[in-house]
């Protein structure tokens, strides 16, 4: 396995984990001809229940960063949990997670909300 293969494998897994349907994206990644056969075999052998739960946990950790970083989110969640959850789901699908700290996540979310309203 070369380093390039590892990098590509990481990128494909990252894309799949943040996709709306992670397991469908994983199945596509496992057929990517740019990967070595060994990497394709490893991806094809992944436990899909575990992959789906990993994707949920990645989203939940992001949700928690936003909850801790954005002053309006706790009230929004109390007021309209279903509405906020749907908004977060669309945000997570539209914007790749790049913020490691709660205030950065809050800024990214606020920018997405502003852009969405402009649309």
């Amino acid at each position, binding site marked *: 396995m070369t380093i390039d293969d*590892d990098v590509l494998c990481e990128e494909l*897994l990252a894309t799949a984990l*943040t996709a709306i349907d992670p397991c469908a994206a994983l199945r596509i990644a496992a057929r990517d001809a740019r990967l070595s056969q060994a990497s394709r075999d490893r991806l094809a052998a992944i436990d899909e229940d575990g992959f*789906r739960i990993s994707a*949920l946990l*990645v989203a939940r950790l992001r949700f928690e960063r936003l909850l801790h970083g954005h002053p309006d989110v706790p009230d929004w969640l109390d007021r309209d949990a279903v509405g906020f959850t749907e908004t977060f789901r669309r945000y997570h699908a539209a914007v790749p997670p790049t913020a490691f700290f709660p205030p*950065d996540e809050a800024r990214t979310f606020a920018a997405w909300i502003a852009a969405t309203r402009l649309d």
Partner: protein
Amino acid sequence: MIPVGLSLVPDVVFLDLLHDVIRDEADYYELAPETLWFRSSSGALEPNGFHRTFRELVDATRKPVVAHGVGFSVGGASEADAARRTSWLERIRLDHEVFHFGWYTDHVGVSALGGLATTLPLATPMTDAAVMRTRGALEALQRIVPDVGVENSVFYFHLGDPLDEPAFLGRVVAGPRCHLLLDLHNVYTTALNAGFDPHAYLARLPLDAVIEIHLSGGRDSPAAWGGRSMRLDSHDTAVPEPVWALFDEVWPRCPNLRGVTLERMEDTVTVPDVAVIRAELRRAREALRR
């Protein structure tokens, strides 16, 4: 006597409810350094309010501190993450000057997959290249904190046979002053989810490399998540009896063990948990006396 420590989390309720336990029952503290930072408008990593709180606690109690992060992504292959990791190293260096970490560990695997803030430790293929990358990350940390290591992470999916992981970990920590943090709830959880015997995993592990043991609890995934239920390493419940049994069995076989740490997640401690956590710290200490 091997000391018993408690992980400290940036949570006012945790720190308030466990005020006496933190001061009276823990021999040392474990911190996740990156939970004590924020990125300022200049882009620099700066200490947040909990950094000061923990510094004052350590100054007042004079208890030792070890560091245990999740975000350094020691197995990451992506160049997209290189600049972030460089900035984190500088912040870790500054924190080490303050807290004088006894050792610094992170989770084996990759937590910034493709440079994204996935923040959950995820499996890497257990290849020579992954060993070299992880060793390289540990060597970078070692230039700041001389004793470093990796924890056996919980992975909910694997890129290979999970029973090959002990040998992989052994290769990762084969260098001087590189250690293993043995998280027994992670072993228990992975064994349940992947369907293997935790004793088979422990039998393959280089136990002479273990510097620290983690004890914690977790729960099953909610039914609403769909699919088959899996145990989560959620650190939000008492340490389950099977994990205590693994602890009693394995710690005497770890000749270089320097600490046993109890972990609880932020936002999960309520009034009834205080007595539980106190009792767990005492139970660990009692086990180590036997």
